[in-house]
């Protein structure tokens, strides 16, 4: 297969800009093009699409195809009065952040059992329903997400405590005791937490999360 064609296909299929390194990773080691070759493909593609209504652009995080802005008056009508529905994945991510905040992406993924796309996080941030309120002190220092005032406003809530109680819908299914992640009835784990922390200020409890 032609390297340029593979790159072209990947740029079209990806939902986000692709960096040169990400593009190189598409290939098995023995076929991996060097940076030069990838850049060359970009140049060719830019030329290929010169006459078309879309163009290859470079953004901060890589390259992507986008519709030439002169077409937006027509294309934007696709969304007129027809807001796209949020995906289930997005709603689930939002729900987890709302009920389990602050939560890292890893924690969300662990609960959902699948990875959370950058797109979803971005959409929620753009909508100003979630924001980063810190970073967890574990390797990689992942961002901790929490809901915002705008989120509460949108849903007409005074505080998060006004979120519908889970109990009403979950019935017995979840009342299985088992290991609590935040056991309020019993102080011991928390005290332990402090003792621990005094010796090892960070990281110690990285696995406590969900």
């Amino acid at each position, binding site marked *: 297969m032609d390297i340029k064609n593979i790159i072209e296909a990947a740029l079209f299929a990806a939902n986000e800009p692709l960096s040169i390194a990400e593009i190189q990773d598409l290939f098995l080691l023995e076929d991996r093009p060097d940076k030069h070759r990838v850049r060359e493909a970009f140049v060719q593609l830019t030329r290929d699409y010169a006459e078309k209504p879309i163009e290859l652009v470079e953004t901060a995080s890589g390259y992507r195809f986008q519709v030439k802005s002169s077409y937006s008056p027509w294309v934007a009508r696709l969304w007129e009065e027809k807001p796209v529905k949020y995906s289930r994945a997005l709603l689930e991510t939002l729900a987890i952040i709302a009920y389990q905040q602050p939560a890292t992406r890893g924690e969300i993924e662990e609960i959902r059992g699948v990875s959370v796309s950058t797109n979803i996080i971005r959409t929620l941030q753009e909508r100003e329903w979630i924001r980063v309120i810190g970073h967890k002190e574990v390797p990689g220092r992942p961002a901790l997400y929490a809901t915002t005032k705008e989120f509460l406003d949108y849903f007409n809530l005074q505080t998060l405590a006004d979120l519908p*109680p889970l109990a009403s819908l979950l019935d017995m*299914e*979840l009342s299985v005791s088992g290991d609590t992640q935040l056991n309020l009835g019993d102080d011991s784990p928390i005290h332990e937490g402090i003792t621990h*922390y005094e010796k090892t200020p960070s990281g110690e409890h990285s696995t406590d999360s969900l």
Partner: protein
Amino acid sequence: MQKTPTLIESGQQSLVWVSGKPFYELPDDLYIPPDALEVFLETFEGPLDLLLYLIKHQNLDILDIPVLKITEQYIEYIDLMQNLRMELAAEYLVMAAMLAEIKSKMLLPRQLTEDAEDEDPRAELIRRLQEYERFKRAADDIDALPRLYRDNFLVTAELIVDKMDKPVPDVELESILIAFQDVLRRADQFTHHHIQREALSVRERMSRILARLSDGNEEFVAFNSFFTRAEGKQGAVVTFLAILELCKEGLLEIVQGEPMSELWLKPIIE
């Protein structure tokens, strides 16, 4: 199919003619090491699937099933499972009963009438086997169809407009709850998540405390400043728990200059 006969051949070594072809020994399809039985059971989608397997693997004609032979094999298999106390779906037993019934009908002298409509006792079984087989094949066919995210990928190009121009979807609070409920139900399959309402307010407080710690310009924020009289005892408890929990998760540090002096909170951030 020239494997050695195994535990099921007991007492049945006679040469059999099936569809005009001689069979010298029983295939050993039925012999499975006991520890593999469970896996084996899982590979069958039910009694029809198992029967089809027995038939196919012996090159038998589905339209002319040697009921005696199949029934014995099937029941042998079921017995084996039961001896090993494997959890067997009721359907398997129903099928065993049905086979036994067909077998007994076959053994009875056929009423020699010209009544051709007097059905072969096997007819219903054969019909069901055939019916099942075609859908089994159809399932394979569907699985082989090119499908999104495996064989095909959608092509998109980004449209840059004022983001405001794209209307944002409306979401109902209820749908979030439902989404979360689904998540929990799924998650519950691997682990027990104990979620309680009380936790929520602590969680919220944790977010607020963290936000305040990271927003502020000061490196340290007074521990006391997080407690307000207006919130009462409960508020204080929630705040206290939240601070402890944050501490436990390694998100903040509680600092004290000297014994008995004021406590300060410091975010472990950047």
